[in-house]
């Protein structure tokens, strides 16, 4: 039995909107074994992104326990949580979220600015990550000089450059054409298969979800097995 890298116990999340409590996640409990490529599907407003954010430590549950990479997140302070994220989480955004004034290499280098690596070591890591995503020849390009697919590949390189425990991807193909989306999904599958990375991907695209080893549906804040 593989140890779970994520373990959620009775997790609830609710927001107050116009004086009314809106429940987004309801009493959610599940484990994700290390090395899994999991796709979470569900309609808009089902709480997929909230669940991903709770696992990433960028949002806190209203109640329940979240243990990721052996750390119970609800006990961490803001600063500890940031340091924990830097060490354990690689995040891929739907809209790539590259910093426009930095080159591809500098964008990928950002997470390494939080490490004690030397400039030379950082440079080596960046080159390796960009080659891995097939952009070794685009290091000096700014985001505006790249296509959407290339931007997302830089986003993936940024997510893996610090060798995090887990990669979380929020609709990583949502803004891409079919061909570029396939490239990204192939890349994620490769990272899972060849490097053993645990990947949790939120998507509403069934074709994207098919590339994962496991699919779960989130419906009104409750996680369900596939029909």
């Amino acid at each position: 039995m593989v140890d779970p890298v994520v373990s959620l116990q009775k997790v609830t999340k609710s927001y107050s909107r116009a004086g009314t409590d809106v429940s987004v996640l309801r009493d959610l409990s599940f484990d994700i074994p290390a090395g899994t490529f999991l796709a979470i599907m569900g309609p808009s407003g089902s709480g997929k992104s909230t669940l991903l954010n709770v696992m990433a430590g960028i949002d806190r549950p209203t109640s329940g326990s979240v243990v990721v990479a052996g750390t119970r997140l609800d006990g961490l302070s803001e600063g500890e949580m940031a340091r924990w994220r830097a060490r354990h989480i690689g995040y891929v955004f739907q809209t790539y979220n590259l910093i426009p004034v930095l080159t591809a290499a500098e964008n990928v280098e950002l997470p390494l600015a939080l490490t004690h690596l030397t400039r030379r070591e950082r440079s080596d890591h960046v080159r390796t990550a960009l080659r891995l995503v097939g952009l070794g020849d685009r290091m000096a390009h700014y985001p505006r000089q790249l296509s959407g697919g290339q931007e997302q590949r830089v986003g993936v390189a940024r997510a893996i450059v610090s060798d995090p425990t887990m990669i979380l991807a929020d609709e990583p193909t949502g803004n891409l054409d079919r061909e570029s989306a396939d490239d990204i999904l192939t890349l994620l599958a490769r990272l899972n298969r060849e490097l053993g990375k645990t990947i949790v991907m939120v998507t509403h695209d069934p074709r994207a979800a098919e590339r994962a080893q496991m699919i779960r549906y989130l419906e009104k804040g409750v996680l369900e097995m596939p029909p």
Partner: protein
Amino acid sequence: MLWSAYSLRNLWARRVTTLLTLLGLGLVVFVFVAILMLAHGLERTMGKTGDPANAIVMSKGALSEIESSLSREQTGVLAAQPEVITLADHQAAAVREIALQLTLRKQEGGSLASLSLRGSSPDAFAVRPLVRIAQGRLWQPGTTEVIVGTQVAKQFPEARLSETLRFGRREWTVVGIFEAEGSGFDSEVWGDAEQMMATFHRTLFSSMTVRLADPTVLPAFKARLERDPRFKVSVKREPEYYEGKAEGLARLIRVTGLFLTLVFSVGAILGATMTMSASVAHRTTEIGTLRTLGFTRSHILQAFLLESSLLGLAGGLLGVAGAALLNSVTISTVNWDTGAELAFAFHLTPTMVGEGLLFAAGMGIIGGLVPAARAAHIEIVHALGQRTV
């Protein structure tokens, strides 16, 4: 390195607003440095007036040469003091002088201005070796000839070489122009002391300046003369006396100027705040992304403060560069301490450059403080625009 590039490129990315903010900050720094240059130029000019080896002797209690009076007998005994150097002609290096004021018109049909008029003797050139005749010649003793400083010749058409000045119901011919290395003497008119005393019905000199064989003996020389009941005099090192004559005006320039700078700086700081606020608003998603990657609130605060301080520094460089253009520009104004016109030049020093840049960076940091704090406190999910579930 990465952060510096990030901050600089973000400023460049919004170059129009950055430039406008730079202009505001630069203007304040320009005023700030120009005021320091002006006050320093004044002090420097007066500080250069006189020679450290010289002592000026005035009557006890007199704050300036105009208020002082020394008798012929007193000056004779003072010149014979052993500390005073002896010249090649066996005369003591001492000059007794009378200080007066003269009113001349600045330009054709322009305003009237007071000038320092010094009745002296040719010995003044032996006592003050830095003063030299630049054009023409020295006055002939016993005549109504005068020589004028370079700044006087430049600003007063009627005091040019070979022109005639009218004062004390007599006519005085300008026979020479002297140069005193940019000191306060450059703004004076010199002539024969005996002729001026006769013209103005004076029997007493104003002061006596002596050149000491050893400048280090001045404290002992001063103590001995000031203690001696025969003299009733006060003794000062010559440059210190003239420097003291600039204190009031220099203080006024600094206080007024720095107050104005402070008022202007409020506007410049608000400009920096608006620029940085717009920058934060424009980069909310970027902030959320950085926080997601593991950067702390403190990192975000530092990044925006670095950016605003760079904005300030760039404005500072602009202001200092503008102020540097004023370096050596000469202006003329009334020295409140003497009531006479004094020409002096703006003077920039490395310390002023440092102070200007520090002031600019400070304005940038203060202006960036609120936007940077706001950037640091945005919730990640809000910054990423994901609160909609």
